[in-house]
C-alpha cells in the first residue's frame, strides 16, 4: 500500500528501475491520484510513462552526473556535491571554471560550503557507569604464580637434598627398622642423620601438594596476605630415605616458634634456595629476601621472605 508517508521510497526505487511491474503500476496510479506530490520541489517531472520519467528525472539530486556539463538547471546539485566533497578531480576543475568570475555562483557555492555542520565536543558524563569490570585479579594471579614456583622450587630442592643423604651400615637400629620397607643397594641403607626428629604430619600421597595449591587459590591468598597452610610436606619415604618434611608455611610471626622444615639429611642449602628466591622474585616482581642463619645451639637453617611471608628451614645437629 503506497501512502503519502512511504511514497518516496517507491519513487526512488522507481527512478532507479528497481520496482517490479506490479509495484510500478501501483505507484503510477498513486501519482495520478496525487498530482501535488509530483510537483513537489525535488520531484520535478510528472510521471506518465516509465521511459519518459527516467529521462525527465534530474538524477543530480542523487549526485549522479552523466557528463561534465554544468547548466543553470543542475548547477545547484553541483554546488551541493562540491560541499559534500564528493566531486572527482576532473569534476572539481570543471566546476571551478563554471563558477569562476560569477559573483552569484561563487556566493551560492560558498553558502553551501558553509552549510556543513561544525562538530562540537560533547562529553558523556556518566561514562564511568558504562564500563564493565574485566574479570582479572592481578593479586590472585601473582599468588598463583608464586605458589606454583614455590612448590616447584621446593620440590626441586627436596629432590636434590635427598640425593645427598648419609649412608651407614645396614645393621644400625634405624636401618633395621626400615629394612622391611626398603631394599637398599650395595648392602647399605640410607638413613637420616638425626632420626629422632619426627615430622608432625605425614601425608599419604605426594599429590597432597596439588591439593594444597588449590586450597591456596581458593582462599584468594596473595603474597601480601598471610597463608596458614600452603605446603605441608613431601614424603619421599617410598624412595628409601627417611622422610624429608617441609611442614608448613606460616606467617612470619610463627617462624621463631617452631621448625618450619625438618630434614633428616645433611643439607646443601646454598644453591637450591637461591634458585627459588630468584624464581619467586621473577614471578612476583618483588625482592626476595634470602637469609642463612648461623649455627645456634647446633642448629642452622635459612629463611627467605616474599612480601609478608617467610619460609624457612632449620636443622638440628646430632
Amino acid at each position, binding site marked *: 500500500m503506497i501512502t503519502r508517508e512511504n511514497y518516496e521510497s517507491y519513487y526512488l526505487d522507481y527512478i532507479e528501475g528497481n520496482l517490479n511491474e506490479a509495484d510500478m503500476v501501483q505507484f503510477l496510479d498513486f501519482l495520478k491520484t496525487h498530482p501535488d506530490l509530483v510537483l513537489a520541489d525535488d520531484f520535478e517531472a510528472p510521471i506518465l510513462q516509465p521511459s519518459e520519467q527516467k529521462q525527465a528525472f534530474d538524477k543530480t539530486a542523487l549526485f549522479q552526473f552523466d557528463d561534465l556539463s554544468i547548466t543553470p538547471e543542475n548547477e545547484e546539485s553541483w554546488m551541493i556535491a562540491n560541499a559534500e566533497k564528493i566531486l572527482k578531480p576532473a569534476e572539481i576543475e570543471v566546476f571551478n571554471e563554471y563558477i569562476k568570475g560569477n559573483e552569484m555562483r561563487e556566493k551560492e557555492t560558498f553558502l553551501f560550503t558553509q552549510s556543513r555542520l561544525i*562538530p562540537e565536543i560533547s562529553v558523556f558524563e556518566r561514562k564511568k557507569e558504562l564500563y*564493565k569490570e574485566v574479570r582479572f585479579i592481578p593479586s590472585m594471579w601473582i599468588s598463583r604464580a608464586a605458589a606454583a614456583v614455590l612448590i616447584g622450587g621446593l620440590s626441586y630442592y627436596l629432590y636434590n637434598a635427598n640425593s645427598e643423604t648419609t649412608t651407614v651400615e645396614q645393621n644400625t637400629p634405624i636401618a633395621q627398622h626400615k629394612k622391611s620397607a626398603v631394599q637398599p643397594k650395595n648392602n647399605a641403607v640410607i638413613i637420616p642423620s638425626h632420626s629422632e626428629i619426627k615430622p608432625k604430619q605425614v601425608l599419604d600421597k605426594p599429590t597432597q601438594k596439588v591439593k594444597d595449591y588449590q586450597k591456596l587459590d581458593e582462599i584468594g591468598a596473595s603474597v601480601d596476605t598471610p597463608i596458614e597452610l600452603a605446603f605441608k610436606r613431601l614424603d619421599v619415604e617410598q624412595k628409601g630415605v627417611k622422610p624429608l618434611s617441609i611442614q608448613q608455611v606460616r606467617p612470619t610471626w610463627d617462624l621463631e616458634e617452631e621448625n618450619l622444615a625438618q630434614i633428616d639429611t645433611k643439607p646443601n642449602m646454598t644453591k637450591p634456595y637461591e634458585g627459588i628466591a630468584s624464581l619467586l622474585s621473577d614471578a612476583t616482581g618483588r625482592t626476595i629476601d634470602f637469609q642463612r642463619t648461623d649455627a645456634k645451639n647446633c642448629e642452622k637453617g635459612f629463611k627467605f621472605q616474599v612480601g609478608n611471608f617467610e619460609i624457612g628451614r632449620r636443622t638440628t645437629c646430632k
Partner: protein
Amino acid sequence: MTTKEYNNAVSLHADHVYRFVLKQVGGKMLAEDIVQETFVKVWEKRETIEAEKIKSYLFTTAYHLMINALKKEKRWSGEEVENTPQTVSTSSNFDLKEILDQALETLPSIQKTVVLLRDYEGYAYDEIGEITGLTEAQVKVYIFRARKQLKTYLGQLENVL
C-alpha cells in the same frame, strides 16, 4: 566482542553517540538515558556483535531508541517537512556554529539525522543508510534537501546582516 573491546568502545564512542543524540532530543537527561540504554543493549548482545562493527551498531541502536523516545513525546517529524517558521534570529556576535545550530532545528527529523551522521561522524551515504534503515538514494536525497535548507537559512542571515 570481549569485555575489553566493549570498554574500549565506551571510551571511543560514548561521547560521539551522546553528541548525536543530544543534538536531536535537545534535553540532556533524555540524551543520557538513551546513551545509557544503548550501551546496555550492546552489552547484552555483545556475544553476537563483531568488534569492528561496534560503532555502527551503537549509532543504529541509539537512533532507534531516540526515535521511539521522540515519538512518545510526539517530537519526531520523520520525513515530513516541518512548518517551523524559518525566521532568522541574529545575535550581536555572529557565530556560524550558532547559526548552523539554529538552521539545523528547522530541518525535518530525518534530514537532521542524516546530516549529523554525515557532518559530525563522517559516515558515507551507504553507512548512514544502514544506520537509519534508508536506501543510499534516500540518504542522498535527504542530504540534498537538507543542504538546500541550510544554505537558504544562511542566505537569509546574510541578507539580514
